[in-house]
């Protein structure tokens, strides 16, 4: 894999990482009442920067763009090396937009405002960092650094069992990432021993040419780290716990951005680094993907808690990404990437919806809800769109990715694709079941509830504003995916270059 680099004329990526950090510092030292505007403005600036990158990115050939590299720890051969290809770029952009939504949503936060926004700003920097780093040490630093703010977000601003959830989230993902670290360090050592190169750069490690046995070992080590983050079945149990307890904005980021890191890892590292092992493990990955899709869909419908249901649905959707990734063909890869983006929007919107319901009704239990559609029509509409996008309705973003991923999977394994396609049924099942129970069926409500809920307010401006970009993006991707496909196509081809040639 040979890669071209286009150096950045202006260190836009570094600036994107630094701005939230600086803003965090500013928030720390200023008055509490400035925290919200500063954070929102920061996130918007980052969003503008990433959008600028998105539109100036040249997708005609594969090259790492906005590339910066500075020597950092020469002793270990570590450099600060950032840049984007289309995969990174879309992820960064997804991060930026999710954070805008999260920040705008968070205007109703009342508890420990300063800390809250500081945690989120640091989280934003770390999330962007994960996607743009091409040096494994930096990648790992961001990968882990993100745990701290997320841990606090869940633990401090969460609900009743937040401590259990936060600890589980932290330790479980930490567990995975340490195995990831073992793998990367192992490769680093191998590179040093075999080639005499002391480097943690992605581009050096990608051309390692490991023997098959080692490929298997390293693949498994990395896969464990990524699988927990994704999360793939059976490493998924931290996710429902974390989602249920996390505050709304935390859930949004968790679902929209953090889960993507695992799948990003598979796409970015597992495939190009371990082509033989990846091929070898395709059946396993397919099996896990299908189990994730079907099994967690069943888990989802068994839930009585809105957020847990959505959390399981995330696991289910991630199954498609796994399938698409390991289909090892262009359709699958494009599908995986599009699903990642799309899931970012849909799950974020669904969690916002859950948070909104809680804001109004003060319950996440499905049995306490019902008939909300009449009291809050605007919300009902947006929720419906999000639910439908999540269920993979054509014309919305979810379908594009699922279709491509299924197509790619079908080429690799018919039975897997057919089973995975069942998600069309079961996925719609739990999504609509949730909608059905929460929004419809007013006639089953007791009268006092109806009287009380008559006075419920529909969405306010902040809530609407945080919802809208997500919903708009569902349409944009759903109606005109061609633009996105073209954007990522060269990147997909480059990632798959060891499988499909060229």
């Amino acid at each position: 894999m040979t890669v071209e680099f286009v150096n950045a004329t202006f260190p836009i990526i570094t600036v994107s990482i630094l701005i939230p950090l600086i803003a965090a510092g500013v928030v720390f030292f200023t008055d509490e009442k400035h925290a919200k505007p500063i954070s929102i403005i920061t996130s918007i600036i980052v969003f503008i920067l990433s959008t600028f990158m998105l539109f100036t990115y040249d997708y005609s050939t594969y090259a790492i763009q906005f590339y910066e590299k500075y020597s950092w720890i020469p002793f270990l051969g570590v450099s600060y090396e950032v840049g984007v290809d289309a995969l990174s770029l879309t992820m960064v952009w997804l991060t930026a937009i999710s954070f805008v939504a999260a920040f705008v949503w968070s205007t109703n936060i009342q508890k420990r405002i300063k800390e809250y926004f500081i945690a989120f700003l640091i989280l934003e920097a770390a999330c962007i960092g994960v996607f743009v780093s091409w040096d494994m040490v930096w990648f790992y630093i961001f990968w882990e650094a993100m745990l701290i703010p997320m841990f606090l977000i869940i633990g401090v601003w969460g609900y009743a069992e937040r401590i259990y959830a936060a600890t589980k989230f932290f330790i479980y993902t930490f567990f995975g990432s340490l195995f990831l670290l073992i793998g990367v360090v192992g490769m680093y050592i191998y590179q040093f021993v075999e080639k005499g190169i002391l480097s943690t750069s992605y581009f050096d490690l990608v051309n390692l040419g490991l023997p098959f046995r080692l490929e298997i070992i390293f693949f498994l080590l990395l896969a464990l780290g990524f699988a927990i983050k994704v999360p793939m079945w059976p490493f998924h149990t931290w996710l429902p716990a974390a989602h249920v307890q996390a505050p709304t904005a935390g859930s949004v980021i968790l679902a929209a951005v953090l889960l993507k890191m695992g799948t990003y890892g598979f796409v970015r590292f597992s495939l190009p680094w371990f082509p033989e092992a990846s091929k070898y493990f395709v059946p396993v990955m397919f099996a896990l993907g299908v189990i994730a899709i079907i099994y967690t869909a069943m888990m989802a419908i068994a839930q009585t808690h809105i957020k847990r249901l959505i959390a399981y649905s995330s696991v289910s959707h991630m199954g498609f990404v796994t399938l698409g990734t390991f289909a090892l063909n262009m359709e699958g890869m494009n599908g995986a990437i599009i699903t990642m983006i799309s899931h970012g929007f849909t799950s974020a919107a669904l969690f916002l919806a859950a948070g909104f319901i809680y804001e109004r009704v003060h319950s996440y239990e499905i049995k306490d809800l019902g008939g909300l559609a009449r009291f809050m029509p605007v919300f009902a509409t947006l929720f419906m769109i999000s639910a439908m996008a999540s269920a993979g309705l054509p014309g919305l973003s979810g379908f594009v990715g699922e279709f491509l991923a299924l197509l790619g999977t079908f080429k690799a394994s018919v039975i897997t694709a057919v089973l995975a396609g069942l998600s069309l049924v079961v996925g719609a099942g739990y999504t609509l079941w949730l909608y059905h129970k929460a929004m419809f069926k007013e006639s089953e409500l007791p009268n006092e509830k109806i009287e009380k809920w008559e006075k419920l307010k529909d969405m306010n401006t902040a809530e609407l504003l945080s919802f809208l970009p997500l919903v708009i993006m569902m349409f944009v991707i759903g109606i005109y995916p061609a633009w996105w496909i073209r954007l990522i196509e060269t990147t997909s081809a480059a990632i798959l270059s060891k499988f499909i040639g060229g």
Partner: protein
Amino acid sequence: MSVLQELVAGLGAPDFSVVVPEIIILLTAFTIFAIELFTKARFLISVITVFGLLLAGIVIPFTPEGETFYGLYQVDTFSLTFKFFLVMTSFFVVIIMRPYLEAKNTYYGEYYYLLLFSLLGMMMMVSSPNLITFYVGIELASISMYILAGMYRKDYLSKEGAFKYLIMGGTGTALISYGIALIYGRTGSFDFSTIATSITSGNLDVGAVGGLAILLIGLALKASSVPFHFWTPDAYQGATTPITAFMAVAAKIATFAVILKIMVEAFPFAYPVWTLGWALLAAASMIFGNFVALRQDNVKRMLAYSSIAHSGYILAALASPTDFAFTALIFYSLVYIFMGLGGFIFLSAMERQYGWSNHINDFKGLAKRSPVMALFMLVYMFSMLGIPPTVGFFGKLGVFIALIGSNIWWLAVVLVVMSIISAGYYLRIVIYMYMHEPTSKARFNFSLGEAFALAFMATFILILGIYPTLFWDISGYLTAVLLQNIGK
């Protein structure tokens, strides 16, 4: 007569220029000793100590390298660097000690000069090219510390801890000296270089291995490595907290440095023996320290167990006899200063506050009562846990790379798994600080020294976490120096 004359003839006068820092420390200690006889001006005593330490710290970079005392004392970059950090550690302990001692109404001047004597012992340890100097150095340091640990007035626990420390430490001393005796019998010398040339990989016999083993056990005891760690939690818990900080950081660092020095300079060719030994000890320390720390409610004791675990992490590097591993060990030792000091100084500062008992419940809602302090503690905890962007990560990473680089996968996996276990108790503190409601609203007050020390540690942890090259380069250079000394 002629033999003696021949032996004595070439000696001449020792070169005192290379021991200026030690002399400054010694003089400071004596000055305080003298002053205390006449005045109880506590402020003066602190200021003189701080001044002496500062002076020593400033002098160290300008101290010439060389050997003195007829080859019994070796001053090189390795020892100077460690001396600098030891002095720095003592400096931070000293600047936070005064408010603590006053609040606890315990002895005063004794703490200062005993601490300086102990520091002097440690400086000798890291400067030793020779088992004799090492031995007297470690004993000076140890005996001073037995006293420091037991000096908490009116406090029985302090005495108990100190007595356990003394008995165990005495046993350790006996083991070390027995080991030295065997080595001496095997090689006919105390000098590292002679020992190194006498014991080669080809002629490892029971004598050499036995001597090395017993010496190693003694050193492991001083470094509180499992199963020779038993004094650690008790002594740490019993001692006054600034002294705990000193014991847990300065003594540890000096011990690690000297262990490294002895292993590398005195037994370079016996590495198959000691790598295995340290690997086993390290694994045991990590496992025991982390598991037991999980169940501690007293945070001070928890940190004591955590320091046992950290001994494991650091010593694990010795399982791999490569220059990279030595660098990693030095790096981890140096950065451990910041985390260890941070944690214990934090406790020391808190212990002065009303109603503080170091119980985990006291941490409830700390983030609300004192957000900045809680933030610092958070940084220390995550650094000990090894989460980037704190420097603890790079400490573990270095050891980790070293282990994998030498194909010691099993120990690497133990390290990883134990790091995960350790998340349980480090996070617990963070959880109590951030995720529980405070039980009281009372504000805390901190002295300038405490605030400065805590802020310094936290800042440095983060700075090093972002730019570890600063210390990697130092560590790498020290390793080079160490390796040059072999057989010299």
